[in-house]
């Protein structure tokens, strides 16, 4: 699993690429949390576009990051979910805690509190 990070204002964008299972998710989780703390981010966007395999460990990863962002009154969004990833996330009802966007730009616009009149539905 390869991870790259990007910060836009107080939003940490996490771009995942590779296979996400219980083995790789532990390191991924630690890596995200460390970066989230180091940059004092508020919101997290998880990009799944480059994820070629995911099992239920992805659900745990999102739930855990959701709890982290909540501590800072932040929100979590997911982008680039394939039909197959959506199926797994849907099973766990993840879309009730993490809003799903087609593109990173859309997610950033929705999370950016300076955006005008954006209503958060999640």
């Amino acid at each position: 699993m390869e991870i790259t990070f990007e910060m836009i204002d107080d939003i940490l964008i996490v771009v995942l690429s590779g296979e996400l299972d219980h083995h790789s998710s532990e390191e991924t989780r630690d890596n995200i949390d460390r970066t989230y703390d180091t940059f004092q981010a508020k919101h997290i966007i998880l990009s799944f576009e480059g994820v070629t395999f995911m099992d239920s460990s992805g659900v745990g990863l999102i739930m855990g990051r959701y709890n982290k962002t909540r501590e800072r009154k932040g929100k979590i969004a997911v982008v680039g979910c394939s039909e197959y990833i959506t199926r797994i996330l849907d099973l766990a009802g993840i879309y009730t805690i993490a809003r799903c966007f087609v593109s990173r730009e859309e997610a950033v616009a929705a999370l950016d509190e300076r955006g005008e009149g954006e209503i958060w539905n999640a």
Partner: protein
Amino acid sequence: MERLNRIRLEMLCRSENEALARNIAAVFTAPLDPTVEELTEIKTAVSEAVSNAILHAYGPEKDGPIYLEMEADKTGRITITIEDRGIGIEDVQKAMEPLYTTGDNRERSGMGFTVMESFMDKVQVNSSPGKGTKVTLIKLLDRIHGF
């Protein structure tokens, strides 16, 4: 039904073997002409079952074997068993409930069995405390449904 192929693999209880097991499952299934979706479903279910065995079967020492067995017959029925000789599951029905985890606070989603049940045609769990757990996954490739 006539057997097409069968494999049995013994592996150590190491999390690296999640990827190994699901990729072997994919390679085993590929000659049977599955759809991409079916292949992904099989990989995911195997990953979940092997992860469960690695995480829970042998306690913190993680010392013991995990067996992966796969069998395919001419109708396109694939039977996969993932077996361990570990601590077993006290209450199988409860373990299979969505969102149930052992609460070892390591961010488990508790969705493993739910994913297996959603992606496979049949999931059966046999377990007895102290003896181990055997998870049987059955997938009927779509071509046998007459498509």
